[in-house]
């Protein structure tokens, strides 16, 4: 069955004569296969993006027609709405704590499991389990109880309940995210396994210790995977909602300390019916995520190392 020795042109030779027709047929067939995606991309992605940009310049409450107000929403957001800025700062703080913590845990566990001979499969699955359950309302409610006044963490550390303390409630939310390090861990582990053992052997021959090997072999070889995880988890963290909603009983408290960006957007749009304002917020979020992603991509040139670039 192996026909790899035959060059591709030769393999196509029997079909060469009627080649034209199948080729065009394939183009048509491709669009049939793509049609659900194309429809979705237009009706549920591109069109909504354009509409939400338009609505961001209007006053709109879902019931009466949108009223053009120009930059009003943006001006109000940036200059007259302290709660907006509060939500921005809260979200940035959350991203800066949750993402590095989560990725560090993922990397440490992946490194610990890497060379393991027995039990690797078990640990991999067990450490991954919280990631699937943790996104649920059930676990968010558990989190609130465990970090509440009189909850386990209070009993253990005498914290007096983080959920009620403005400085600490956000940390509880960030810990819930960090706890779900399964997905990046599994990706790290797969990446670690693709590093050729010869590289470590060569480094050892050159007299590199474990730490030196980690810095000179593991980190550069793992950098594409690290970058992938960093981008994906950062984008996701900007959109955190459920744990903040549950921990603060849907209010973003105490003292707006867990009022993350999406929760304030939900509050403005779907509770207060200011759809125009919420659309403006959504567009700022889109721009910020776009900028952050672009910056990450730009800085990645200096630290992400693609070893296999040559053979692709």
């Amino acid at each position: 069955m192996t026909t790899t020795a035959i060059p591709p042109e030769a393999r196509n030779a029997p079909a060469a004569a009627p080649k034209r027709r199948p080729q065009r047929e394939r183009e048509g067939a491709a669009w049939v296969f793509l049609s659900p995606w194309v429809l979705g991309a237009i009706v549920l992605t591109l069109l909504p993006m354009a509409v939400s940009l338009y609505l961001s310049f209007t006053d709109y409450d879902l019931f009466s027609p949108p009223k053009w107000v120009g930059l009003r929403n943006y001006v109000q957001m940036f200059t007259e709405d302290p709660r907006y800025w509060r939500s921005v700062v809260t979200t940035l703080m959350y991203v800066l704590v949750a993402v590095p913590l989560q990725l560090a845990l993922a990397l440490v566990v992946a490194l610990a499991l890497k060379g393991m001979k027995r039990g690797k499969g078990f640990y991999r699955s067990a450490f991954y389990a919280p990631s699937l359950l943790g996104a649920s309302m059930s676990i968010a409610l558990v989190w609130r109880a465990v970090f509440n006044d009189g909850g386990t963490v209070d009993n253990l550390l005498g914290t007096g309940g983080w959920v009620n303390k403005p400085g600490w409630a956000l940390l509880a939310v960030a810990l819930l995210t960090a706890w779900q390090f399964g997905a990046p861990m599994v990706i790290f582990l797969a990446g670690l396994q693709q590093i050729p053992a010869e590289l470590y052997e060569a480094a050892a021959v050159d007299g590199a210790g474990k730490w030196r090997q980690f810095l000179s072999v593991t980190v550069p070889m793992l950098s594409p995977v690290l970058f992938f995880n960093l981008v994906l988890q950062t984008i996701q963290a900007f959109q955190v909602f459920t744990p903040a909603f549950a921990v603060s009983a849907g209010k973003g408290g105490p003292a707006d300390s867990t009022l993350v960006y999406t929760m304030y957007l939900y509050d403005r749009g779907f509770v207060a019916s200011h759809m125009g304002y919420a659309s403006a917020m959504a567009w700022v979020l889109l721009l910020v995520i776009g900028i952050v992603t672009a910056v990450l991509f730009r800085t990645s040139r200096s630290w992400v190392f693609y070893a296999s670039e040559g053979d692709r």
Partner: protein
Amino acid sequence: MTSTTVVRKPVRWGRVALHVGCLAALLVMLYPLAWLLATSLKPADEVIASLDLLPSHLEWSNYKTALDGVNDVSIWRLLANSLLIAGGAVLGNVISCSLAAYAFARLRFRFRGPLFAFMIATIMLPHHAVLIPQYIIFNQLGLVNTYWPLILPKFLATEAFFVFLIVQFMRGLPRELEEAARIDGCGPFRSFFQVVLPLTRPALITTAIFTFIWTWNDFFTQLIYLFDPDKFTLTLALRSFVDASSTSAFGPMFALSVIALLPIVLFFLAFQRFLVEGMASSGLKG
């Protein structure tokens, strides 16, 4: 250092320490789950006051209360609603994402490069950028407070992550198989259904499981689209406990939480191999 036993011993101790460390970390990590299970069986007065993880006696009445339902809606109704939404989403994603993925992975068409780049970019697009107009569209169509806004988008391959996942998988399949099929007279449709799709099964299973679990756990979309209590899912029913501060509601609340997590746990136990490998392959290859 000539005797092998001398060398082997410290290595072994390192192994043991590694396992002890991993198990200790797991204990801490799985504590919230144990706590959830224990609390769902605790009598009301022990929920907060007691430091013990284990209840003094098993309070099955929490589950009885939970099974009675929430807001006069029976738990079977909530369960059926959750299953309907998750099942519809699975069907939609598997069909639409595999179709799009086949075109991107295997067929030639104009604008393939830019469209693929656009598809990848939508993975990074925050949901909120399209949320409000989507809501308005479904509102205009009179579909708010129905399940359509939760299911219909999945039939249009809007979850680009899965398209990407299946593309990655299909690219790894040998091209010779399709070429052989073509020589035997198969058009693109037959080679998709009869040659490529059966081989793509692992990726489709991964898509199905992730879709099920993510849809089941999804809270935000359900929160904005559904407001009739008898249309609620288990997740939304739990929301009514969000404001609850009285400890008397705690037992039944966590009993309901356990019930809501049960399908995910079962899915996880049955399919963890696909889940873990599917996730691993999404970050590799390029």
